[in-house]
Structure formats: structure tokens, C-alpha cells
């Protein structure tokens, strides 16, 4: 499913309604980021300690991560739909890089798929990663296919060629914790194979605001003169995609909205990205 016009309308409203807020937010973050560029990590330390506290209940099917467990199958459905949209869908032997893997819910599941060659999963929290590693020992089939690394993306060695790049880079329930998304996208790009995908989602209902306030606004706000009253003409779907994706070497954005319905579980609802949770995928130019 391509970007829905509805979300763009939201974006439009948001930009028109709070342009100053959006700009200010980015300026501040940008400054912080540039000041600490040398030791820069995309990771916010407060977030890390928050996840440490969650670690023990990560794999409790009735614990606080239940919704994530229930959502996990949809991540695979979404990735499959991304792959199916390619002119020639990829076969097997896929390499995954899972950023912010947490207890490993997605990483384990991706490693179990027969079409997966390997999964590298990273998380900056040592406690959470210890939980992930201990849990993976329960499934002998994961051995050799799943590697956990206690690092952020910045700590990963740069791939030296397409062989070391990944077919799928996943960012599940991570983006809202990233301080500077546009740079982050650029950082991710080095790890993605030409023709590979970044897939992401959020459960925190902030996807719209992330896309609108961060990724797009950063770019668009930067190029659109302040105070212009011509937003309507300027921001249409085509141009948006054209700018913030094409300029950065990405194409084929896809969105899937899902809603949690008690008693039914996670269900895909067309147009629900307006109100609910999203999956978002973009493909790196070949």
C-alpha cells in the first residue's frame, strides 16, 4: 500500500498548525547531535534504562510485551508484502539486521524462517541483550543463524561491500527513540544492500508524528521558506516522496496500518494509520 493521502493531509495540518514547534524541535536536536558528533549514538540513555527495567518480562506471554508478541507475525506479513511488491521478489538466503532488537522477539522469528540466511541483532542495553541471548538458547535451531551484538548502529563495522550488507534492516518500535531521523536514515543506508529494505513500525502511535514532524519536516521545512502560505500547493504526495526519499536514494514507500482489537488481536485495517499503529517500509535504490 503506498502512502495514504490521509496521512499526508494530517501532515499538512500538522505543519500548518505548528510550524514553529516543528522547526524548533529540530533545531535543538540538530544542535545536540552536532555537538556530540564524535561520540554520537542515536540512542537516548534514558530510553536504554527504561528497557533494562523491562528486560525480565520480555518473554512473558502475559507480561507487558504481550502486544508486541502478538504483533510480531504482522511484521513478517508486512515484510513479505514489501518483497512481493518488487518487480522480482527476492528468494531465500536473506540477511537481516535488526536494530534495537530488545529481547529478540523479531530477531528470533526472522532467524527461524527457512528463507533467512542470518540475522544480526543489536541492542544498546546489556541487560536486555542478556535476556535475548539466554532466551535464544532455548531453541537449538537458532544456533548459527542468529547473532546478538551489544551495540548501537554506530558501533557496527561498516560493510565493505554488498556481501556484508543486509537485505532487510528492521527498526521495530525503535524510531520514536531516535533523536535525529534523517541522519539516522542515512546511517542505515550504508548497511542496506542495493534493492534492500528498511522496515519499521511503532506501537506508540507516533508514527505519523515521526514521519511528519521529523523526517519530512526536517527536509521540507528546511527548503520551504518560513511563513509561506502556499503549503497546499507545495506539499502534495508526489513531491513529498520525490524529495525526502529520492534525494536520499530510497523508493517504493509502503504503509500498513494495524489496529489492536481486543478479542481479535492485531488486524490490518486499511486507512488505520490515521489512528493506530503502522508499518512503514522503503526500498533502497538498486
Amino acid at each position, binding site marked *: 500500500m503506498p502512502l495514504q493521502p490521509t496521512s499526508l493531509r494530517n501532515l499538512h495540518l500538522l505543519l500548518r498548525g505548528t510550524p514553529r514547534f516543528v522547526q524548533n524541535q529540530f533545531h535543538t536536536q540538530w544542535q545536540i547531535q552536532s555537538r556530540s558528533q564524535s561520540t554520537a549514538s542515536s540512542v537516548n540513555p534514558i530510553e536504554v534504562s527504561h528497557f533494562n527495567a523491562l528486560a525480565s518480562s520480555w518473554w512473558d*506471554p502475559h507480561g507487558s510485551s504481550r502486544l508486541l*508478541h502478538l504483533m*510480531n*507475525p504482522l511484521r*513478517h*506479513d508486512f515484510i513479505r508484502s514489501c518483497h512481493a511488491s518488487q518487480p522480482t521478489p527476492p528468494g531465500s538466503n536473506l540477511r537481516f539486521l535488526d536494530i534495537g532488537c530488545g529481547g529478540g522477539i523479531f530477531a*528470533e*522469528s*526472522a*532467524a*527461524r*524462517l*527457512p528463507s*533467512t540466511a542470518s540475522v544480526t541483532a543489536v541492542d544498546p542495553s546489556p541487560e536486555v541483550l542478556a535476556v535475548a541471548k*539466554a532466551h535464544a*538458547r*532455548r*531453541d*537449538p*535451531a537458532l*544456533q*548459527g*543463524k542468529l547473532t546478538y551484538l551489544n551495540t548501537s548502529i554506530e558501533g557496527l563495522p561498516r560493510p565493505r561491500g554488498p556481501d556484508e550488507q543486509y537485505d532487510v534492516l528492521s527498526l521495530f518500535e525503535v524510531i520514536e527513540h531516535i533523536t535525529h531521523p534523517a541522519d539516522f536514515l542515512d546511517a542505515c543506508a550504508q548497511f542496506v544492500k542495493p534493492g534492500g529494505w528498511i522496515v519499521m513500525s511503532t506501537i506508540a502511535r507516533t508514527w505519523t508524528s515521526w514521519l511528519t514532524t521529523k523526517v519530512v519536516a526536517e527536509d521540507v521545512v528546511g527548503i520551504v521558506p518560513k511563513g509561506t502560505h502556499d503549503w497546499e500547493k507545495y506539499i502534495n504526495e508526489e513531491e513529498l516522496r520525490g524529495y525526502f526519499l529520492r534525494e536520499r536514494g530510497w523508493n517504493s514507500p509502503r504503509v500498513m496500518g494495524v489496529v489492536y482489537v481486543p478479542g481479535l488481536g492485531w488486524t490490518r485495517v486499511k486507512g488505520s494509520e490515521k489512528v493506530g499503529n503502522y508499518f512503514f517500509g522503503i526500498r533502497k535504490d538498486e
Partner: protein
Amino acid sequence: MKIPSTSLSTRQLGGYVCSGCTRQLRRQRRSYATSTVNPDLYDVVCVGGGPAGLSLLAALRSQPATANLKIALVESQRLDATRNFQLPPTQFSNRCSSLTPSSVRFLEQVGAWQHVDQKRVQSYEEMQVWDGVTGARIEFDWPAEKRGQTIAYMNENLNLTSGLLKRIDELGGVEVLDGQKVEDIALGSETEDFDLSSWPVVSLSGGRKLAARLLVGADGANSPVRAFAGIGSRGWDYERHGVVATLQMEGPGWGGESKIAYQRFLPTGPVAMLPLPGDYSTLVWSTTPALAAHLKTLSPKDFIAMVNAAFRLSPVDLAYMHTQSDGQADELAWRSQHTNFDQHRIPQQVIGVQEGSIASFPLKLRHADTYIGERVALVGDAAHTIHPLAGQGLNQGQGDVESLANTIQYAVTHGQDIGVRMSLEPYNAERYAANNMLLGVVDKLHKLYAVESGPIVPLRSIGLRAVNALGPVKQFFMDQAAGTGVKIL
């Protein structure tokens, strides 16, 4: 790599349990000399090779997504007799079940029905159900387009399990460990490489140990797997036995090609006569243990008379004949002269009973508290045992198996560990309430008709003049017979 003799082809190892792990474990076996035999790892270990267990394995092996799972079947009986099941067309095994069209559709889908000897299967298109006390009948007003359609298929359980085994053999890849009893099930342990502390390890009488990612209990009403999982099972005994026998009739039935199933509700329980191919029928007579024992002592001639009487005489006459130690044939001949009945609404006369086919089984209702545990799933009679009056026990098991196979398929295609409770939840959610409702309705049917006198009988005969007014009950029979589900409320 050398594949252990007990495990399967390399293709098999392409399942969840990677060849590396197998190698790893075998290496360990050498280095940790202190520990006892290390278990072999399997994705699915199914205990029980009855209709439920075999259907599950056929389903898993026939679906592409689950075909690479590493699977073992443990069955205490030798399966050769089942595999080579063969009888002349004039003989039938006494354990027969009616299969609903939806069970047959499922069996076709997994490619097993094609291996079931169709000459030994009998469909029926009509049902006659009536109350032995009041004579009231349930009139089945099948919608025009349903009339004449198959309500269910009578089939010997052995013809089914034999077909399933042939299908499993054809597909290959299931490690069949038959003639081996489960001696012990315990949780695995933690080693340097793996943590198998959540994996059930099944020890067999032959000495093998199998660690199961998912342990399936298809091991019947006294399920050792259920006991291992600590899953309680509630219910009661009906104080009834089901007497079964293979009967020869005076002809192929009143409908000719179109066959009829008969069931009469007697105060002691329902007696059912279900058509088999040709001039044969199978009997399921639910009655008190004492009367069941009495029936089994009779000569063939008197047994036949009792069966004919059960569909013709009043419960009072029948009760009297149960007090006779012999001579029922003469008694029936005499009493028949004084009883009117509509020939065409009752089965034809029984003229023979197959030698050695009279047997009886205690009837009970049991329902497990849940069908799933961590790395455990129960299917078929291990999960629930139902009164046979609606012919649903085996069909419920087929419904379980179809649901569990779908659940496993979903888990595999989404990278879930198929054993964990989270992955199994959809199976429990889909089947538990449905089975529970069916168990309850069938139980109430039994109780409704198992009262001989007192306030409920007149009620049964008028209001329920019966039973026609009992819309839900009738609907139940129609829906269940047609396998269209539990739409009974």
C-alpha cells in the same frame, strides 16, 4: 556429516532442528559422559497413532510450510496390522465411526481419504430418530437442496487409520516408533550449548529419548501427555457402556441405494443402527453396564432378537427380556404379534451377527481444562471424550487436528517457535469453546432421554412432541450431521 541411524534424511533435517544442532548434540554425548543419553531433538513428537494423531501427521507432512518439520510418532501398538488392514467385503470391524462431510473434506485435503478403501465406506442420506418412551420422532425437514445429500459416512476406524498410515508412508519423513510405550516424560536440562529446560523429553520403552519442541498428546482418553502437562480433566462417567457389533440385515435397507441411520432413545440410553455397505450395519447400543454384560452373554440368536426388539418393543417389554437368561428369540416372535410398528420407519430385521464382533466400552464425558501448555498440545480423545450418541468423538478430533495443523503452519510461516504457548493459543481459542458446547449439548441430550418417568417424560412427549418443537436439538443434529458446526443456540 553422518546422520544418526534413528534420524531421517537430510531433507528432514531442513526443519527447525538444524543439522548443526544434531551434530552438536552428538558431540556433547561424547563429552558429557556423566549425563545419561542425550535426547534427539524433534520439532513435533506425537504420542498416539489413533485417528487424531495420524491425521495430524498426514496434515503436517502434506502442507508445504510444515513438511520440513522433524516429526516422530510414538504408538504403543504395532502399526503393521493397521497398515495391512484387509477384510473380505462380508466382514467389518466393530469399531466404526460416522465421519461428517467436513471431516471427509479435511481428509481429502490432506490426501488421506484417497487411501481409504471406498468400498468399505457407506454414506447415509437420511436419519430416523425417535423417543422410545413416547414414540415421538424428530422430523428432519432438510431444505430441498440438502435432501438426498450425504449426512455422514460410516467407516471402520481401521479403514481410516489404515488410509492415514498409507498416506503418511507415501509422504515419508515421519519417524514411526511403534510398539513402544511412553515410559516417562520429563523436562529437559540445560547444557553448555542449549537450554532445553522447557522441552519435554519423552523416554520410550525401547530406550530412546526424544526432546520435543512440541509434544502432541493424541494418546486417547487416559492421555499420559495430559498427565505430564498437569492439565486436569473434568467430567463424569455415564454408568453406561456402548455395546457394539457388526450385524447382517435382511436386505440393503428400505431406501435401496439411499441409506438410513436409525437411533432410538431408550430410558437406558440410545440405541443406534448405522448402515455399512451391502446388507450390513453397525450397532452402538448405550446401556447400563449390567445390561451390556447381559447382552454379551446371549447366544447369537438371542442377541439378534434383543437388537431387533430394541428398535421395536416398548421399554417395558425390553426390560422384561433383559431379565431372561435366554429365549429372547421366541419371546420377540411372540411379542411382535402384539406390537404395531411402521416397518419403514425402523431398521430392517437383523438376521446375523458377525462372530467376535460384540464388544462394549464404558462411556464417559471428559473435558481437559485446556488443550495447550508450554510445548504441549492435546487433540482428540486426549482433550475430550464425548457420549457417542451423536457420533461426534472422532469428528471433534478431526476438527482439532485441522485447527492445530493450521496453527502450526501459521507459526512456522511467521517464524514463531511452534511449541510455545503463545503460538498455540489460537488453537485453544478456536476449539475449546466449540467442543465444550458440543459436549454440553450431547450430555443434555443423553440426560433428557435417560429419564423413564416423572415430570420430564410428559413434558418430553407433549412439548416436545416432540422434539420437533425442540428446534435447537433438531438443528443440532442437522448441523452436526452435516458438519456445519456448532450453530445450536
